[in-house]
């Protein structure tokens, strides 16, 4: 075996390897289980019940009597999501044909601690051109950091030097196997089958739980090559998740009108995931993770543009799938580094 090691190799900070090993064992014991990996599957009968909500809206009182765990919030959200599923199924396909590319332009915001323990936010703008086979190009622009107070800014510049005035640009080739673009072409459009695959984490890896399933549904929905049928099915899967609440009419971070559903997890924060859709097309507009108590935003993903284009350098002109942004996003600063940030 080659003994060469690229430099930049360091020890784990003192004491932290043991601390993290102990945390790992604790997580397995309390939240993951020592036995074979088990995933909670939604009761298919319950999912079907939720999926029929629009049809039985007039008999809603009777449903509430039959399904005692069917909370009003969940019912309203399921109804909205099933309506969105119907809308999604009627949309024209945005899947790239031969010689075409699905184009998306997204803006991701996150607030994280860096190696020095300084809390800073960055935005990452990503433009993707994805052909039907998953190949294509991705251009990423990472913004300079934004600081939440002058002291952090000063400390940062003393360490790293002047703050860049331009974003850092990275261009990547997609070879059809990138995890940033999921292969959704062969996914089933039966809600029970798709839900089982998602809950078993067969499509995207990750921990089990409704919170995580909710998150994965929207990741798949944001796939450039998701067909109208698949998008409709994903909405139906979301309609079957417990605890989802309809937030109603909202404005997304770039000022577009839409409707939102949300799910709050008490086990980490509490933290709320908010997902915003365009009412007329059911297109995904934005997702946010916010502190359930203060409303501070830890991360957000916004779809700025989407459409099908003829080359991997062009952008949509008259085939936009989402409304154009009407405002510059502003995010409320979190009080701390947020769940999951390493401290230095």
């Amino acid at each position, binding site marked *: *075996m*080659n*003994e*060469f*090691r*690229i430099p*930049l*190799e*360091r020890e*784990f*900070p*003192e*004491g*932290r390897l043991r*601390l*993290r*090993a*102990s*945390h*790992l*064992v*604790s*997580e*397995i*014991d309390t*939240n*993951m289980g*020592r*036995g*074979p990996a088990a995933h909670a599957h939604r009761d298919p009968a319950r999912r079907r019940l939720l999926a029929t909500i629009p049809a039985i809206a007039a008999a809603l009182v009777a449903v509430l009597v039959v399904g005692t765990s069917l909370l009003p919030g969940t019912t309203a959200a399921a109804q909205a999501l099933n309506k969105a599923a119907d809308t999604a199924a009627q949309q024209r396909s945005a899947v790239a044909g031969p010689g075409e590319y699905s184009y998306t332009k997204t803006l*991701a915001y*996150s607030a*994280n601690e860096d*190696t*020095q323990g300084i809390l800073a936010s960055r935005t990452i703008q990503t433009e993707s051109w994805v052909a039907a086979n998953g190949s294509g190009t991705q251009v990423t622009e990472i913004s300079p950091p934004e600081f939440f107070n002058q002291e952090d800014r000063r400390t940062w510049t003393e360490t790293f030097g002047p703050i860049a005035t331009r974003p*850092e640009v*990275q261009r*990547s*080739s*997609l*070879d059809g*196997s*990138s*995890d*940033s673009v999921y292969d959704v072409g062969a996914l089933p459009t039966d809600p029970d089958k798709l839900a089982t695959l998602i809950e078993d984490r067969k499509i995207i*890896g*990750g*921990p089990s*739980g409704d919170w*995580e399933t909710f998150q994965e549904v929207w*990741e798949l929905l944001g796939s450039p090559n998701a067909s109208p049928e698949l998008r409709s099915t994903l909405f139906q899967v979301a309609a079957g998740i417990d605890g989802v609440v309809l937030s109603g009419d909202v404005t997304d971070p770039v000022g577009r009108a839409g409707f939102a559903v949300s799910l709050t997890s008490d086990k*980490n*924060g509490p933290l709320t995931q908010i997902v915003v859709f365009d009412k007329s097309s059911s297109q995904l507009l934005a997702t946010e*993770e916010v502190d359930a108590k203060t409303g501070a935003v830890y991360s957000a993903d916004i779809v700025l543009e989407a459409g099908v284009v003829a080359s991997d350098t062009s952008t949509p002109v008259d085939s936009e799938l989402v409304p154009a942004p009407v405002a510059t996003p502003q995010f409320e600063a979190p009080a701390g580094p947020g*769940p*999951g*940030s*390493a*401290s*230095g």
Partner: protein
Amino acid sequence: MTSDKELWDRVLQGDADSFGELFQRHGQAIYNYCFRRTGNWAVAEDLVSTVFLEAWRRRRNVKSEEYGPVPWLLGVASNVVRNSQRSLRRYRAALSRLPSQPVHPDFADDLAARVDDEKRMRRILAIFSELPDRDQDVIALCLWQGLSYEQAGAALDLPVGTVKSRLSRARKRLRELIDRSGQFQGETRLIHEAARQFAPEEDTV
């Protein structure tokens, strides 16, 4: 000392303590690998936890135990770092339960060096990121981490021939990218050396 094989057998029986022992033995290698793929020590630290949590979830999927747990863990790490923001978000709840972490005095002294590492690694990654994801994996595993073709194949669940062809393709493409960029001479030399030592029968990068 208990061997990795014995620990892994216990892990397959659901023994979390043995998995914690494997973390203490091999967390270091995964930590450095995650840093090389992200250029950020703080992110790398959270990613190590994420890699092991994900590895526990997938522990029954190991197809070959011939090379021990490290290549397989590096394979899991490759999947996790490929989209590190999403990976960290998925395990946000688990990471939020990490106890507050001690800041050791030595670490403060070490900070400037770590910041320099980050600057340097990010310059390398600016070029490296133009390779397709799977080609980045083989370069990082074979040239930077020092795995053999066979071990890299086990890590990525690929035939050895595919690893070789991807590595060859990636090295050529990397050379083009480096030539085009015309900068980062220090890092370029390191990549050249790594390639020469690893596969002397072929043109170096």
